[in-house]
């Protein structure tokens, strides 16, 4: 696990079993991490539409927030979620999803993070998250 916090975002995400289960990967793009989650059958919450499960969307957003905090703070430990609020704007379709996060405010012990998820069009977000994490 030595590469877990060396600052390589792709390795950092790869090291998390639940992210591998969801198929989430990370790339660095202009100082912010871009998370990508290709569609897969086991991400479905509503087979009729079909639509991504709300929990999958929340998980992707929380992962984006955590990854961005680790990347920016180079913390010694994983940020610990205190609370998160996810707003669902439209249903997540059976296509690849993307997510990005930014730190709105960083204190000594707690950070406030905003994250957004979209699919084909970044101007049409599927969901967003606000959350506090202990660092």
């Amino acid at each position: 696990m030595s590469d877990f916090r060396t600052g390589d975002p792709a390795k950092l995400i790869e090291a998390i079993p639940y992210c591998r289960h969801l198929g989430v990967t990370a790339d660095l793009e202009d100082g912010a991490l871009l998370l990508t989650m290709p569609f897969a059958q086991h991400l479905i919450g509503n087979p009729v539409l079909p639509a991504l499960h709300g929990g999958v969307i929340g998980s992707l957003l929380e992962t984006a927030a955590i990854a961005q905090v680790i990347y920016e703070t180079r913390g010694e430990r994983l940020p610990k979620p205190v609370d998160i609020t996810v707003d669902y704007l439209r249903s997540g379709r059976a296509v690849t999803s993307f997510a990005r996060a930014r730190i709105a405010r960083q204190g000594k012990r707690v950070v406030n993070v905003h994250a957004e998820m979209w699919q084909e069009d970044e101007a049409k977000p599927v969901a967003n998250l606000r959350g506090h994490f202990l660092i």
Partner: protein
Amino acid sequence: MSEVPAWLLHAKSHMNLTPYLAGIGGEIVDIGTPARARLPYSEKLVGDPQTGVVHGGVITGLLDHTSGLAVMVKLREPMPIATLDLRIDYMRPAKPHQDIIAECECVRVTHEVAFVRGTAHQGDANDPIALCTGAFMLIRGGVHGIPVAPA
């Protein structure tokens, strides 16, 4: 106790087969008040490889699913629902190698929106892992969503 309507039993079995829930290994235990789901520990749920603690998103997913079920329990007729928002307060990390239980209750149904409160714990509801608050849109007369009659 009034009889559980057939459509609700069907919705329960359908929500048990939801690919996401099946993928993480969860199951619906109860369609009452509260609605209850159980998630056994497994390695693929881990969010912190150094401690073995499950990812917060797992808790979010289980609470979201159980909240939706809690809304259905309170409805008089079947209809599709959609999560509007969900807030999770993480009280403490989940202990590795122990089941996670989600218990949710729909506290109010209006014409368009249902409001839910829920708890995730590991056997003792007084020692919660997380609390949740959610709002769900009711899509009355909607045709999409969880199928409400046997296929």
